[in-house]
């Protein structure tokens, strides 16, 4: 910024002379700048959204040219479809099971890194690095770690005298393997949000507290956590929405078969299977729309809750 643009203290700023040429904000020329984005957004988000909604009222098939209007039949049918409820239950279980560690562990990691360990850059990199990996790579790594015969985890377990776990083969464990993999893979993002929030807390607060004789735990519960409230709210909202969208890691990990005994089939995989494996696009659209509405409801409830806690 040049010195000339800074208003001198105490002096009332003169209105600047009207600029020549069209304004980017007020003028009609602005539309041309947002048009490329709007075109892409309309073509790849809005239009499919509306088209999918339309599809859900038809018995559209991937392998048949003609389709019939069936009104709310697809919606009525899905409420009686036990597979919808089963896979929805799995998705909710995954969301709860993954959100808690993804928030708590990320916070602990950020606190550890923030509280003066040496070589901060190294820890920041190490904690964030898995998040940079593509999902297929992550799953390959974990497939090897989870393997029953030559997997590192079971080798370690037997090494310390514990029984082997059927990470990919036991119906009671299948979903939790996906949770473990997901936590390792995505925790770096929440960690980064927490770290940024921690760095924004003014050091004077801690100095003042220290002068008043507050110990480490007191400072944590009296200053740090309350000031992180807003970030925690954001992290939870983002995490719940991300976890509800579970699909790719479970799909690749279990080669599209839903895991042992179908115990790791999220609802989005049921939508995919219905639409693309069983070719029933109309019905799949209806299921995905019900899920869409559910996600929006959850987001609204969370927004309401976080607003209340802030006020």
């Amino acid at each position, binding site marked *: 910024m040049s010195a000339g643009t800074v208003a001198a203290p105490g002096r009332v700023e003169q209105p600047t002379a009207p600029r020549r040429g069209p304004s980017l904000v007020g003028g009609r020329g602005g539309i041309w700048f947002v048009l490329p984005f709007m075109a892409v957004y309309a073509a790849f988000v809005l239009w499919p959204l509306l088209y999918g909604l339309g599809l859900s009222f038809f*018995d559209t*098939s*991937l*392998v*048949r*040219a003609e389709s019939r209007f069936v009104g709310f039949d697809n919606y009525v*049918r899905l409420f009686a*479809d*036990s*597979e919808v409820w089963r896979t929805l239950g799995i998705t909710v279980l995954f969301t709860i099971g993954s959100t808690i560690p993804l928030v708590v562990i990320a916070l602990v990691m950020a606190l550890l890194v923030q509280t003066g360990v040496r070589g901060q850059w190294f820890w920041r990199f190490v904690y964030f690095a898995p998040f940079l990996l593509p999902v297929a790579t992550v799953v390959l790594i974990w497939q090897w770690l989870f393997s*029953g*015969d030559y997997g590192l985890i079971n080798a370690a377990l037997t090494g310390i005298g514990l029984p082997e776990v*059927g990470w*990919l*083969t*036991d*119906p009671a464990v299948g979903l939790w393997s996906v949770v473990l993999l997901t936590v390792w893979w995505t925790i770096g993002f929440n960690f980064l949000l927490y770290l940024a929030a921690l760095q924004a807390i003014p050091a004077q607060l801690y100095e003042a507290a220290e002068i008043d004789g507050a110990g480490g735990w007191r400072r944590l519960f009296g200053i740090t956590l309350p000031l992180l409230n807003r970030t925690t709210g954001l992290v939870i909202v983002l995490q719940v929405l991300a976890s509800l969208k579970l699909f790719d890691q479970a799909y690749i990990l279990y*080669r*599209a*078969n*839903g895991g*042992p*005994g*179908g115990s790791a089939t999220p609802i989005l995989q049921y939508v995919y*299977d219905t639409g*693309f*494996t*069983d*070719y*029933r*696009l109309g*019905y799949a659209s209806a299921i995905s729309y019900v899920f869409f509405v559910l996600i929006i409801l959850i987001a609204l409830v969370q927004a309401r809750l976080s607003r209340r806690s802030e006020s």
Partner: protein
Amino acid sequence: MTTSHRLSRRTLLRATAAAGGAALLSSCAGGSGNAVDLAYWNFFGGSDGKLMVELVNRFRAEAPNVRVTATTLMWGPPYYTKLAMACAGGRAPDLATMHGSRLSTFGRDLLDEWDLDELAARGVSLDEFPQPVLDRVLVDGRLMALPLDTHPLVLYYNTDICEKAGLLAPDGTLAPIHGAEQMLDAGRRAAEVTGAIGIALGSLHEAHIWMPFWSGYRQLGGQMLLPDGGPAEVDRDAMVGAMTFLRDLCDGTICSPSLDGQSSPAAFASQQAGFLFVGPWEVTSARTAEIPFSMTQFPALFGDTPYVRADSHSFVLPTQAQVDPAARSAAYDMAVSMLRNSLAWAAGGGHIPALSAVADSPEYLAEKPVSNYRGAAQVVAFDPEAYFSGSGSTLMARAGQSLQGVTSRALTPEQGADDLIGWLDDQLTLGSPL
């Protein structure tokens, strides 16, 4: 000097452009005696993939004017989804591989039928294929898929372990096994020798567990009709019988209830098991491991006829919005070429050749152990017909869940049968997308 130089450069540019345009036009024309472009899709990875590349290369050598683009896609549901979408969109490949069992979905609208005259012109007629396979690929009397092979469930056995267990006949081959009890007993005796398990079966892999289930179900006389709207016409007793056999099999000694698709061939290859239940394609892993082994036809566990779950890798002509006659003709050439050269496919991959000229040839008969079970082609049991059945289908994945429930003893065979029948009924109520 300068002028002439400039002129000559312009002439050169012009000539280059003209030559380029001509090349472009000739490549567009395709069938006018010049090169023909042919797109071919398949799903063969691993050792089968190598053999398929070999077959494609042999055709390339036979027909140098055909430029084949061979695309290998991921096996299973993704392959069939992509192929269905390509067909529905009108821009499908000229030739594709498909399991015979998937014709119930694709055979109706998404494929063109094979012209018998065109095949005859290339020396192939229908009487050269095994009747059970032919029955599956003929839809309303029209040939919708040209079978390359039959690949049934087969019985692998380790000759050393079986000898120690006293399971070999005097000629060194496996003594015939009659009935479920004898199979279980053979497994027990093999387990005593290995100290681990008797039979390797990937009970956690939906295709591996489906194969012995469907074989047993059919041997018990079970039929399955899946009419649109339901309910499923199923022989519950046969289903319970086949599931009971699987439960008895996976007792932790004869079979482990927790082997997946990779660990079961690995257990056989590392001599942790005396037998292996799987398709013939694992012959490569057994050969690579250099263990003493042989293969034979899957036995009759129930009844007299050793029905065995099988499928057929076949060639299909996906429906296209616009068919290029030259490419279509090249597709016939390529499919017939691969059929004729299927000895390499059979010898390397273990598949039974579909074409009798190959299946009856002395070269194939000399291929041991892969020609031992060629009789299976006459007793094949294809999967039930429905849009959601066949190799890599929803039925296989969902049945795998019921079967795993039984083998892990979370469900009794009766509960397993009811679970599967309940799902079938639900699925049929949803209505067919065809």
